[in-house]
C-alpha cells in the first residue's frame, strides 16, 4: 500500500502528457482540480498511514491480557483507548471539516469562472456524436461543426449543453470537469484553456451502444489562429475542381448523403447528421472512432456499420467508382 502511495506522483507526471487526462492542468478548471486533488491525497494519505500504523502496532503488540486469553468484561480497562477514540473522532471531524471547506472554496472558484464568458458555444449531444455551434449576434458568424472544438487560449468560454436523445456527459478532462447533457434541460459549463495544444474529450455518461466512440477533438490555439479558423469555418464549402471530386459532389448532394448531412453552399442540407462543410479539416472520423485519413475514410463510407456498429449512418451499397468519387470530394472539404 505504501509503495503504491509513493509511486503515485510518478504515475501522475506520466499522465500529464496525454491528451485526455485529469491532471493535465491545461485549463483553469482542471488546474483547480489538480490542486485540490493533491490536498485531498496528502491528507487522506496521512490518515491512511496512521490507521495502518495503528493496525500494525495492534497486531504485533503483545499486550498484558490474561494468559488464558479470556478477559473479564473489558470495559473497565478501556480508559486510555476511550480517550484515544474521542481524540480520533475529534481529529476526523476536524479533518473532514477542513476538506469540506477546501472543496467548497474550490467549487466557488469554479462557479465564479462562469461570470464573464467571452465566447459562447452551444453543444448538442446525439447518439453518438457532438453537434457544435459557435453562437454570435451576427448570423453570418454563426458556425456549425461536429465532434471538434477550437478554443482561443486564455479566454473564458461558456458552453451551453443540450441533448437530443439520452443523457450524455461533456468531458474534456485536460480543461475542466464534466457536465451532463440532460434531455429537457439546458446545462452549461465554463472553461478557460491555459495552454495551446490538442486535447481529447469523451462522453462520460453511458449513452448506449457506441458510448465508447463518442469523442471530441479539442484544439486550443492562439487568438489569431482561432480567428483564422473561425473565418474559414464560416465560409461555404469550396466547389470541387477535379472531375472525380465533381462526381463525388454530385453523388453526395443528390443521393442518400444529402438527406442527413449539411454541406453549406451545396444543395445538401440535411440536419440530423454531422455538418460536413469543412469535414476534411477535422482530426477524426465518426466522433473519434478513427483518425482522419484516406484509408479510414474509405472504410467508414463503404460500410459505416462495421466501422462503428449501430451508428445511425446506414450502409448504402456504393459502387467502387462512387466510393472513389465521394472520398475525393470529401477530401476537398477543408
Amino acid at each position, binding site marked *: 500500500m505504501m509503495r503504491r502511495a509513493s509511486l503515485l506522483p510518478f504515475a501522475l507526471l*506520466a499522465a500529464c502528457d496525454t491528451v485526455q487526462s485529469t491532471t493535465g492542468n491545461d485549463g483553469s478548471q482542471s488546474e483547480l482540480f489538480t490542486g485540490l486533488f493533491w490536498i485531498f491525497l496528502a491528507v487522506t494519505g496521512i*490518515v*491512511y498511514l496512521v490507521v495502518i500504523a495503528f493496525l500494525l502496532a495492534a497486531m504485533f503488540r503483545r*499486550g498484558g491480557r490474561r494468559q488464558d486469553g479470556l478477559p473479564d468484561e473489558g470495559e473497565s*480497562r478501556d480508559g486510555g483507548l476511550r480517550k484515544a*477514540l474521542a481524540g*480520533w473522532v475529534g481529529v476526523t471531524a476536524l479533518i473532514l471539516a477542513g476538506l469540506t471547506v477546501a472543496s467548497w472554496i474550490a467549487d466557488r472558484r469554479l462557479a465564479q469562472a462562469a461570470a464573464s464568458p467571452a465566447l459562447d458555444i452551444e453543444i448538442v449531444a446525439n447518439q453518438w456524436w457532438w453537434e457544435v455551434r459557435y453562437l454570435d449576434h451576427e448570423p453570418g458568424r454563426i458556425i456549425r461543426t461536429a465532434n471538434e472544438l477550437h478554443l482561443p487560449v486564455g479566454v473564458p468560454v461558456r458552453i451551453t449543453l443540450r441533448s437530443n436523445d439520452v443523457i450524455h*456527459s461533456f468531458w474534456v478532462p485536460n480543461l475542466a470537469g464534466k457536465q451532463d447533457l*440532460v434531455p429537457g434541460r439546458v446545462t452549461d459549463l465554463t472553461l478557460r484553456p491555459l495552454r495551446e495544444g490538442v486535447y481529447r474529450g469523451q462522453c462520460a455518461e453511458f449513452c448506449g451502444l457506441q458510448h465508447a466512440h463518442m469523442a471530441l477533438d479539442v484544439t486550443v490555439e492562439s487568438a489569431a489562429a482561432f480567428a483564422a479558423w473561425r473565418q474559414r469555418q464560416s465560409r461555404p464549402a469550396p466547389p470541387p475542381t477535379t472531375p472525380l471530386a465533381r462526381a463525388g459532389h454530385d453523388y453526395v448532394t443528390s443521393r442518400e448523403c444529402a438527406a442527413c448531412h449539411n454541406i453549406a453552399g451545396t444543395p445538401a442540407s440535411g440536419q440530423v447528421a454531422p455538418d460536413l462543410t469543412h469535414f476534411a479539416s477535422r482530426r477524426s472520423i465518426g466522433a473519434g472512432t478513427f483518425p482522419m485519413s484516406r484509408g479510414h475514410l474509405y472504410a467508414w463510407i463503404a460500410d459505416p456499420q462495421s466501422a462503428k456498429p449501430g451508428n445511425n449512418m446506414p450502409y448504402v451499397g456504393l459502387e467502387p467508382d462512387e466510393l472513389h468519387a465521394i472520398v475525393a470530394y470529401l477530401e476537398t472539404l477543408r
Partner: protein
Amino acid sequence: MKPKKSPYDHDRDGHDLTGEALHARLARTWGREPGLLGWLSTVDHKEIGRRYLVTAFIFLTLGGILGLVIRAQLATPESGLIDPDRYNQIFTMHGTTMMFLFAVPVMDAMAVYLIPLMLGTRNIAFPRLNAFSYYVYLAGGTLLWVAFALDVGPDAGWFSYVPLAGPEFSPGKRVDVWAQMVTFTEVAALAVAVEITATILKQRAPGMTLARMPLFAWAMLVVSLMVIMSMPSVTLASGMLISDRLVGTQFFNSFENGDSLLWQHLFWFFGHPEVYIIFLPAAGFVSEIVQTFSRRPAFGYIALVLALVATGLLAFGLWVHHMFTTGLPRLGYAFYTAASMSVAIPTGIQIFCWIATIWDGRPKFDTPLLYVVGFVVTFVIGGMTGVMLASVPLDLQLHDTYFVVAHFHYVLIGGAVFPLLGAITYWFPKFTGRMMSEAAGRWTFWIVFLAFQLAFAPMHWSGIMGMPRRVYTYPEGLGWELTNLLSTVGAFLFAAGLLSFVANALVSMRRGKVAGPNPWDAPGLEWATSSPPPPYNFPHIPVVAGRTSLWDNRGHLPAMQGLRVDDRELVLTSVIDAVPDVREPSPVPTIWPLVAALALTTLFISSMFTPWAVVIGSVPVAAALIGWFWPKDAKVHPEPVID
C-alpha cells in the same frame, strides 16, 4: 413423561424431559418430511439460509465470469473480442447480478441463518415468508439469466438511467427484464428485512436486552430498517419505468413534461443506502470475528452501535453525490458534500474500535482475522477515495471514470466480500459441522488479497488518466494500456483465489476436521448448540446475562424451560429488555410459499407482455395466499416458566 391432566397441559421441555428424549421429541416436532416435497416445503431458517447462500454464490460465480470477460475485452486497446451490444449486456449483467443477486442476498443469507441462532430462538419470525422470499429471489435471478442466455439481457446499465432505458431508446424486452428482476429482488429483500426486524425485536433470548445484543444483530437491525425505508423508492422508480415502458405513461419523458432526473433521485435514494445495506452486515461480521479472535469483548460496543445507527441515518442524506454532474443547483451540492464526508466519522469510529479490540486483546491470526486485517487495509483506501469523490470539484473530474470503479470495488469487495469470506470461514463449522482447512484458507487469503490489489489499484490510475467507465473499448496512445493489462491479470488471479476458496469449502464440507459446538471458543449463543444445529436450534432456550454469554458462563449457560415439545413454540420477549412475554406458535412446513412464489413469478413475468397479466395473474396469487393463510385452530398457550 407425566400423564396429561387437561387439554392445556402439553409436554414441555424441563427437568422431566431432557437429553436424548428431549432431542427426539423436538426433532420430530421441528423436523420436516423427507423427500422432495418436504425439501420444498421447509420453513427451517437454516435450510433456507443455506439455499440463499449457495444461490448467492452461484450468482457471484456467474457475475464474476462476466467480470473476467469484461477484463479480457479491456486488456488491450481496440480489442475485438466482444461486440458492443454483447459488452453492454455483459457489464449491465455484471453490475445487476453483483448488486441485486449477490451482495444483498448473500448478506440476507448469512442473517437468515445466523440471527435466530445468535438470538437463541428456534426459528426466524415469519418462516413461511422466509421460504417465499427465497423462491422469489431465485425466480428473479433465473429470469435475468435465462433472458441473458436468450440475448434479451438488459443493456442499459445496472442503474438503468432514463431516457436510455425508456421505451424510445431501449425498445424490446431487455430493460423490462431488468425492471421486473428488480421487482423480484425488492419483494425478497423486503420480506427478509421484515423477518429479521421482527426476529431481532421480539425473539431474543430472555435477558438479551438490546444493549447485550450481538453486534451482527445490531447491524442487521439497522440494515433491515434501511431496506424497509429505501426499497419503496426503487419500487416506485422501477414501477414507473415499467409503466412508462409498457402502458405508455410519461413519468420520465421530458418531452411530455416528465423528468429524466426524477429517475436518478429515486434510484439513488435507494442506491446509496444500498451500499450501506451491503457494508453494514459486513461490519457486523468484522465485529464478531474481531471479538472472538482477539479473545476480548469488542471494544466500544456502544460506540459501534451508535456508528451503525449513524451510518444508517446518514446514508439517506447523500444520494445526490451520485448526481454532481447533472447540473443541479450548486448551493445544494455543498450539503451533500458535507453529508457524504460525515459518513467517514462513524466508519472511522468502527475502524478504530476494531483495531482497538485487536490492540487490547490477544489476537490469534486465524484465517477469519486475516480477512479482517485485509479488510481494514483495503476498505480504508476505498473510504479515502470516497472522501475525495464527495468533493464536488474532484467528483466533476473523477465521476464515471475508472477511479470510481476502483473506489467502489475497494469498498464493496474490500469492505464486504473480504469480511464475508472471513465470516464464512468463521461460521463454516456451524453451517456444516466441519472446519475449513486452515492452511488452504491462509493461502487463499493471500491470493485473494494481493490479486485484488493488482486488479483494482491500477484502475485508480486509469481513471485519473481520463478513462471513462462503461466503454467497450478504448483507443491506443492515451496511456491506459498498462494499467488495464495489470487489472486484467489481477482479475484473473483474483478469480483463481475465489475459486480456491470455494474448493476449500467444498472439500472441507466432506473431509474437514470435525468441529465441536464451539471450535473457536467464541462467545455468541450460536456456538452454544451443536454444529450443525438441530432443526430446533436449542434443546432449551438460553438465558442471557451479558454480551459474551459463552465466555461469561463457562459450561453452565442458564436456560429457560417450559416450551412445548409436541408443537412448534417460540418464546417472545419484550422489545427493549427481552423479558419473556408470550409463547408464540411457529408455523409448520408447507408448500404454499412455493406455490405463491410461482404464482407471483407468473404474474411478474407475464406482465412484461401484457398489463392484463396483473389482473388475471392476481387470481392464482390470491388463491395461493388463501391456502397459505388458511385459518387453524386457536390454541391456548399459558405463560412460560423461567428456571
